[in-house]
């Protein structure tokens, strides 16, 4: 069977890689060691958190709408795991499980509000974000937790080979699972179906409420996983670790070609987007862009990509019409 890429899907895909390439070249110009094996490895490790966040975010956006609570849920996952290890001396494996569970529960809460109460995703998740942040603050009681177990930290900082870190391995596991889920299972199909046309999905006998619910639970899970990985990498946690990630992950997902309208896009694209975003941050480090301007740069990037995407689609539609 021929699975030819038609020009309409090839062009946007190419434009993503073009963006990535431009950033890499830019990086090389700024710093010749940009493409060294170790720096690539470092970039991959740094990208891992963003990529893991992106997996869930992509599934949420494909199915229904953005999960704007991703950053806060990430914080919460990290905080729960950290506090259980620190204050309750729990085994790190159990603590991690608890952190992931917290993420799933918060995701379920989002799913409930969106699918059953029918509050638009960008309002309900935006609201949950603030409440969750409040609770993370309560749990930490305003403190910063640091210096964790060696074995826990290995998850974030260990290196298996010279350029493959444990973080990268974690990322690969979650990414593979995500891609399999979206491409090879009926659930993935249903996500695209519900996201592209919910009425059609309903008429096809798909229970879109359940699908949306599951999609946001997955998003909660990956967000928490990203938070736990962050704590393991940084060896410390405070209540604002996730706040800077929300814009980054949205930029990564949209840059990766996932459509804000839903039903289009995928995790592979998001990985490219997340790598590009990580390199942008890397470049900003190399250029010593002041930290206060970084959100602004990423804001510009988000609007720029979506704008570019919208215009590209318009052009393609026009060309088809003639």
């Amino acid at each position: 069977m021929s699975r030819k890429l038609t020009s309409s899907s090839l062009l946007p895909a190419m434009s993503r890689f073009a963006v990535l390439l431009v950033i890499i070249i830019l990086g090389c110009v700024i710093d010749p060691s940009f493409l060294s094996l170790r720096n690539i490895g470092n970039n991959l490790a740094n990208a891992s958190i963003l990529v893991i966040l992106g997996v869930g975010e992509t599934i949420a956006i494909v199915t229904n709408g953005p999960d704007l609570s991703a950053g806060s849920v990430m914080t919460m996952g990290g905080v729960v795991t950290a506090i259980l290890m620190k204050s309750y001396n729990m085994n790190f494996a159990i603590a991690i499980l608890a952190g992931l569970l917290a993420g799933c529960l918060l995701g379920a809460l989002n799913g409930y509000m969106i699918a059953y109460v029918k509050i638009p995703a960008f309002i309900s998740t935006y609201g949950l974000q603030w409440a969750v942040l409040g609770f993370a603050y309560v749990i930490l009681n305003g403190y910063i937790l640091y210096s964790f177990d060696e074995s826990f930290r290995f998850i974030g900082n260990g290196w298996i080979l010279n350029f493959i870190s444990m973080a990268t391995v974690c990322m690969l596991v979650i990414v593979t699972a995500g891609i399999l889920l979206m491409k090879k299972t009926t659930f993935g199909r249903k996500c695209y179906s519900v996201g592209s046309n919910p009425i059609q999905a309903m008429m096809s006998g798909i229970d879109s409420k359940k699908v949306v619910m599951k999609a946001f639970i997955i998003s909660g899970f990956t967000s928490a996983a990203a938070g736990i990985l962050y704590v393991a990498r940084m060896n410390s946690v405070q209540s604002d670790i996730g706040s800077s990630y929300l814009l980054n992950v949205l930029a990564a997902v949209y840059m990766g070609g996932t459509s804000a309208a839903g039903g289009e896009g995928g995790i592979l694209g998001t990985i490219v987007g997340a790598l590009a975003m990580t390199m942008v941050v890397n470049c900003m480090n190399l250029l010593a862009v002041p930290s206060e301007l970084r959100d602004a740069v990423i804001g510009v990037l988000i609007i720029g990509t979506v704008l570019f995407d919208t215009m590209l689609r318009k052009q393609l539609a026009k060309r088809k019409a003639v």
Partner: protein
Amino acid sequence: MENRENEYLVDMRHITKVFPGVKALDDVSFNLKPGEVHILMGENGAGKSTLMKVLAGAYAPDGGELYISGEKITRFDPVFLQEKGIGIIYQEFNLIPYLNVAENIFIDHMPGKGLLIDRKGMHAKARELLSDMKMKVDTHALAGTIPVAQQQMVEVAKALTHDLKVLIMDEPTAALSGIEIEQLFSIIRSLKEKGIGIIYISHRMQEISQIGDRITIMRDGQYIATHRVEEIGTDEIVSLMVGRKIGNLYQRGERQKGDTILKIEHLCSKKERLQDICMEVHRGEIVGLSGLVGAGRTELARAIFHVDPYEKGTITLKGEEIKQKATVREMIEKGISLIPEDRKRQGLSLILSVSQNIVMASLDSVSSRGWLNRHKENEIVEQYIKELNVSTPGAEQKVNNLSGGNQQKVVLAKWLATQAEVIIFDEPTRGIDVGAKKEVYSFMDNLAKEGKAIIMISSDMPEVLGMSDRIYVMRDRRIVKELNASQATQEIILSYALEGARGEEQDDKN
């Protein structure tokens, strides 16, 4: 020549409009004189509405010329053409639900000084306009809360606030009762006297002689003919609209009527107001479901398919009574398919591929334990692409890029892939070209021959007559008559479908 141009209010010449995958208008010419009612007729999808949207500036044409009062129009936007005197009342009204009647009437030029609206003045003017039309509407009522007939009057009043030369009405009587239609006609007559030209799109034959001066017939995006109303009879209009003899298009093989497969008894629903529906369908037959728009046909289909709830009555499928609370998915599993009327909204995901769409309602049969079996999927998809002769570059093509007819075939494939035994077709040939229609008909016939049961909802009379073995006629949310195909004619069906409207008219007068 100069003179001739000025004689017409509107002169559209060789208009062409192309949408992705379809040529909606192909070299269509049309004109309108002052003070005449020019009726525009054609089947669904013939291009009437598209032509009018070009005239109103909602679409820019891809070819051809438009003259208004002899002036060549090169700019196509609604505001500009409104200034040129074109008013249009769309089928779906353009009222704003949470603005009041007066505000809706003056939506684009609310009277007042500077930024402020002169509310008193506005309401007074609105009342004046409405009373000129002999309409009693509270100008303070929110537009979303008044009855449909009044909403339409508000639309007319809205058009009249401009220096109106041409008024386009797209099926204005579809939702009106007898008295309301009379009111509308008297308004149309008074507009005629003022020299306003009216373009009137309608499906109702009897209205042509009542209100029309000339009639233009369109078919499949093309101009067919223009006649004076008194020179042309109903039969001729129908044959021009259809463009073919009824017999050769419809397929009717040797169908074997089998045992009852679907039985509906005393079905009532609150939400959709269905009342005491009883019907049965046998294997190997095509049952037509006829009636006017709004009679409740689609609603009945949705209730059978459990998309919408019903409170009373039983549905029995293959001898097994179906629970009221059954889900759509359970209905699919039990062997019912509903091929919806509005394929773009309800039948397909346009941005997904042909293949993804075809297996969308039968994911269970191409997967095991939630894992898709690509091999199986491809097999099924290829099979239906071949069987239905879907012309697509490949199974991975986005449905968006296919023509209307091929999109409809993808919808059919999707619902055949569920291995349904009872298939409900809701307006199966709306908006597709004749060639594709013929294929759809032969396909339906084959299904019936295979022993499947088919319910066909259709507003296209020749289609109902040509395809059905039995016909149920619906009116006012109930079934009013069951006819055998051999006894049925257009006139008989229409008389049952319309009786209610006439009856009500008399009730109102009493």
